[in-house]
């Protein structure tokens, strides 16, 4: 029987090792992916040194210059299909490599990223005097400053030791003024515009009638009068904003690009600056934190490829919260019904299986339902009943995608998650507790209200958090029911009624989709996509970890307190 030469070796050990490969690969995949996203997402904010590259004699020039300045972003082999026979035959493998450079200055160069054959590069230096400026438009500028030209005619040369300090002072001043302008334009002018739009719709609506009754005539006159009043209120504000805008052009920076071109730009165009080649680690950390903070709180610029993601983050949070508001009472109510009130039998068992399976129905199916039912059917009818004016003018209010419909759609999608976990939590409350309460004379509802629900609250919370995590990361149904790449206003703001359920909104997941796939220069958008991905992943993973932790904690608690 034990004829084997290795009788002390249990058979099949080889396969055990083989199965361990499955786990190893799975773990490597998830750790690798998360690591990759974190690394790339974090790297976006880290200030990188700016290199000045000198091209070899005879190599193709960049805009007529042998010298280029930029951040070296990657080095990779050139696509075999694009290699010339000479390159293929060359002994030095460097010839078949290319370097990607972030050169910035898009208004001058046309593209932010440029590739150079590694074999053409003569030398790489990191000059101290380079200034990296983030601008309102056209992305970053990597420049050698020449001088500051102030409004009063004074000129501060870059070699002047006072230059960096003065430059920073003006930047602070310019940014403060920009914030003030935004406050006027978004705040006070925004409010006026909001009312104006409404009145103009009224006016258009009345003007459609060929003949007006005297009452309608009076209405029209009044509407026009109010439009005039708003116009009168608007003009001084607009003038004030304009005046401040003009002051943004008081001071100018004179600078030189690595290619030798000289440019002059108003300081008001600049958002932020740093000296990338003069930073120690502490500076870099400071810069990193600044970038990260700006990314979270700033509005996007340049078709979402620059600036921050505040509206997307805000939209995601508002949508998820609205969704939880809808999903919690419905899910909990349905679960209490199924577990505590419904007569347990084959029917309830079938319903339970079906509810469980709903969680596996593709999200796009819920999306198509949301569009057909919420947006077209419900929204269309709400519009017909409450906003006949807007329907008539072809401006749907609720009859188009919006944050309310999006949250309800996702609530439907996640309600099975909440039902299932609430049911589990209710089932985990031991019979003894219930029977004790009933024996003491409590009614059924009193038992549930005072004992069962509190005891299962953490379980319900777990379900809710899982639902939120699923809702926050889901994009496919949102495409159909109200998410947009660039929303003009937030779904919650300071204009009455403060929460605008009908507004379209921005979403982190859709932001990723839009930037990666709809933007004309996906290469330039990549850093933004990675950073947004990092934020979304953090949001979802933190929610999930929270749910898992609560669940593990609960398991232990129940095990300990079992009757």
């Amino acid at each position, binding site marked *: 029987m034990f004829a084997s030469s290795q009788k002390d070796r249990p058979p099949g050990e080889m396969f055990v090792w*083989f199965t361990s*490969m499955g786990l190893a690969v799975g773990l490597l995949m998830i750790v690798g992916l998360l690591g990759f*996203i974190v690394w790339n997402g974090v790297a976006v904010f880290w200030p990188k040194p700016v290199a000045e590259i000198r091209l070899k004699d005879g190599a193709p020039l960049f805009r007529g210059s042998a010298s280029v300045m930029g951040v070296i972003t990657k080095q990779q082999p050139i696509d075999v299909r694009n290699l010339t026979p000479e390159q293929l035959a060359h002994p030095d493998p460097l010839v078949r490599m290319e370097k990607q450079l972030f050169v910035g200055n898009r208004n001058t160069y046309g593209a932010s990223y440029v590739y150079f054959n590694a074999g053409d590069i003569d030398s790489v230096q990191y000059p101290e005097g380079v200034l990296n400026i983030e601008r309102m438009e056209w992305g970053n500028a990597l420049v050698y400053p020449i001088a500051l030209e102030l409004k009063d005619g004074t000129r501060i040369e870059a070699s002047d030791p006072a230059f960096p300090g003065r430059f920073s002072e003006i930047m602070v001043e310019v940014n403060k003024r920009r914030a003030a302008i935004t406050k006027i334009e978004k705040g006070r002018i925004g409010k006026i515009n909001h009312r104006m739009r409404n009145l103009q719709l009224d006016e258009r609506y009345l003007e459609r009638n060929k003949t007006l009754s005297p009452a309608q005539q009076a209405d029209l006159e009044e509407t026009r009068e109010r439009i005039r009043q708003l116009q009168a209120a608007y003009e001084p504000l607009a003038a004030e904003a304009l005046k401040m805008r003009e002051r943004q052009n008081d001071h100018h920076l004179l600078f030189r690009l690595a290619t030798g071109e000289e440019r002059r730009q108003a300081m008001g165009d600049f958002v932020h600056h740093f000296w990338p080649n003069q930073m120690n680690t502490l500076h870099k950390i400071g810069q990193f934190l600044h970038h990260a903070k700006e990314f979270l709180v700033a509005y996007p610029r340049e078709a979402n490829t620059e600036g921050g993601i505040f509206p997307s983050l805000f939209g995601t949070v508002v949508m998820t919260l609205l969704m939880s508001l809808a999903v919690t009472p419905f899910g909990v109510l349905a679960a209490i019904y199924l577990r505590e009130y419904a007569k347990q039998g084959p029917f309830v068992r079938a319903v339970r299986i079906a509810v469980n399976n*709903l969680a596996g129905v593709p999200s796009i199916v819920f999306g198509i339902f949301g569009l057909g039912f919420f947006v077209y059917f419900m929204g269309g009818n709400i519009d017909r009943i409450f906003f006949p004016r807007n329907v008539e003018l072809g401006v749907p209010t609720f009859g188009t995608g919006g944050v309310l419909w999006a949250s309800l759609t996702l609530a439907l999608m996640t309600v099975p998650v909440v039902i299932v976990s609430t049911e589990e939590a209710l089932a985990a409350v031991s019979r003894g507790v219930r029977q004790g309460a009933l024996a003491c004379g409590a009614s*059924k509802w009193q038992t549930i209200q005072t004992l069962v629900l509190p005891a299962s609250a953490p379980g319900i919370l777990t379900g809710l958090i899982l639902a939120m995590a699923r809702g926050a990361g889901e994009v496919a149904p949102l*495409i*159909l029911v109200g998410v947009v790449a660039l929303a003009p206003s937030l779904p919650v703001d300071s204009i009455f009624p403060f929460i605008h359920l009908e507004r379209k909104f921005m979403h982190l997941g859709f932001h*990723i989709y839009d930037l*990666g796939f709809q933007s004309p220069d996906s290469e330039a958008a990549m850093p933004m996509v990675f950073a947004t991905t990092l934020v979304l992943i953090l949001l*979802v993973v933190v929610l999930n970890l929270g749910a898992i932790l609560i669940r593990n904690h609960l398991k232990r608690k129940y095990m300990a307190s079992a009757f």
Partner: protein
Amino acid sequence: MSITSTPEIPERFRVAKPTLMLDRFMTHFIKGGGFAIIAAVFLIFVFIGIQVIPLFRGASVDEEAVYDIPSDDIAVFGVDEYGELPFFVTSAGELFFLDTRPEDQPGHRGWFGMDIGLPEAANISVMEYNERGNELLIGTEDGQFKVAKIVYGVTYPEEGGRLVTSEVQGTPLFPIGRPGYAVSHLAYGDASASDTGTRKLVAAVQQVDGRAELHAATLSQSRTLFGLGPLKEDASYDLTHLLGGEPQAVLVNWEANSIVVGNADGSVCYIPFVNGAFDVRQRFRPFEDLPDPRIASMHFVLGDVSIVFTGVNGDMRVWSLYRDAASDMRLWGQTKKFPALAGGGATYYSPSLRNKAFLTGRGDFASLRYMTTEVIRWEKILPFSIKDAIIGPRYDRMAFLSTDHKLHTYRMEDKHPVAGWKTYFGKIQYEGQAAPSYEWQSTGGRDDFEKKLSLVPLIIGTLKGTVYALIFAVPIALLGAIYTSQFLLPSFKRFVKPTMEIMASLPSVVLGFLAALWLAPIVSNAVPSVVFAVTGMTLSSFFMGWAWGRLPNRYRLAIKPGYEFLLVIPVVLSFTWLGWELGPVIERTFFVVTNPDTGLQTADFRLWFPEFTGLPFEQRNAFVVGFVMGFAVIPIIFTISEDALTNVPDAFRSGSLALGASRWQTTMRVVVPTASAGIFSALMIGLGRAVGETMIVVMATGNVPVTEFNPFTGMRTLSANIAVELPEAPYLGTLYRTLFLSALLLFLMTFMVNTIAEILRQKLRERYRAVE
């Protein structure tokens, strides 16, 4: 003894009224509310189902009104868009209109005539009606012709309502062919109506001394600042020598570049106008195989690339133009066959101007048929004998002229004529195609574009994505689950499981973005490397197990059971790296393509694969999607099958081990078979997830509908198709409802798969419970 005998419950034991009322209220509230919520959630699918139902309905046609026509000599009639002002032309060329609005309407016009612009002396020999341009073609006894266009307009008068107005625009009489001989057949095409040019083409048959002659003329009209200039004849052609028979019917297409002549002997002659000259390209007999091959009628379907023929015995066949592969020319071929009309060929015919439907029949029989799908939308024996019929320009009404001089109007509702089982699941030969195929193409450039709505490529795409995802995910997930549940140290398991579960929560948009913008370029650059890396990964663990098992016990036992995977991680990594580095070497050796022009040799899999297999290679392909979808599927399969394996009662395992089986034997012979139902259910749920995955597929596949399983091309899945097309689909249109149908399919697929899985799991749970 008896409890009931205590009559009085002490006050302190009595329940307060509000408590009881609240309890009663909550009971009703929860019962009602809970049931309502669950019902509401399931109503989703009822709602989606309701959206789909209209797709499978035929046309509904209801009689609207009957009008007496004060003339018994109507040769041609037609209607406007609203059916308010039909026109009638007598065989003598007098034009009348009938105001069909109720007579009390302001400005009611009754029956009134209008000058068609024909000289008194003209004797009409033939009159034809072109629906597509609402034109009358009039030929005279003395060899002249005229085109009279009836132009409808709409005004909105002060007193409200809508008033349809009409006017006649037309050419003067032009001579054609041999002067002085009567025109017996006439056809006309105006390329400016189809936006393909400005040429106008007239074809006319004349009887000259008992012999038929075919003449054609091209006309043109200059466009000036003040509108259209006068029409003038550019050139005329005598095509009699091309005829080869006695012409019986003539058609000219609306691009004005071909003439089709039907002869009395049942042959058809196709004469395209190429480079300024006419020549016969094809002669065919649509009813060649029948005893009597004669043609009773032939008419174009909208778009003028298909002709509906009826034979003298009522057989109905459709011939369409397609590009012949051998000659690379557009030729006619039979594409469809309809049920025959009883009693003989069609006596009337009217094409829809909105789609490929046509109304035809004979006697008192009327039939509305849809060319593309070979479906009869509606047919009926009417209570009157039909002289002529017409479909309204909006495809919302029909009008019949009966032999007893009455006009019968019918309202028609046929919103989705294209839809049907055959469209969605059958092979259809669309116009211009040489063979039937499954095709999805919902939008096109031209007005006469046919929606191609086959769901088959989408279903195949869905299966393709699923198959590649599972090929990759199943082994890893199952091996991982077996190892985690059977061999892994429990203290590791506490962090391993949550880590894998985190993987399930990765938003698919993130996976899609990484797949498309990061992974796809890398993989397409290095396919051999990827293949070798995967092989290296697999072999390394085998090799590792084999080698480790052969070491002396001293070393072998250094790794305690449950720690194997820690040692495997570096080995897997290094072998993966080795495989990756080996890839380019193999590529240089085997996957070399020689450029035929320069003789230059390039080692590149992307070039080699299409060269060698003839299949295309795309950067965004099923291979990449399969890998990335693994991130979504692996954790699901892993978690559920791990649960099933862990829950196998310990008694089984202990018994097997006690009988001397090794841990691997125990696992494979005892644990896995016991948990097989649970593992199967895990696979089903993983499959359900892969089927419904949307964002990864939208982003990483290129979204081209395919019907093959090549790993190096993309695909379009049902779910991606919904996400891509629904935002542009008009509300309640055919495409909108078709997308609902695909959502319903998706739902049914996943719901069924999940239900099977769930039932299996419940069975398994019961089995375990029985053992314990």
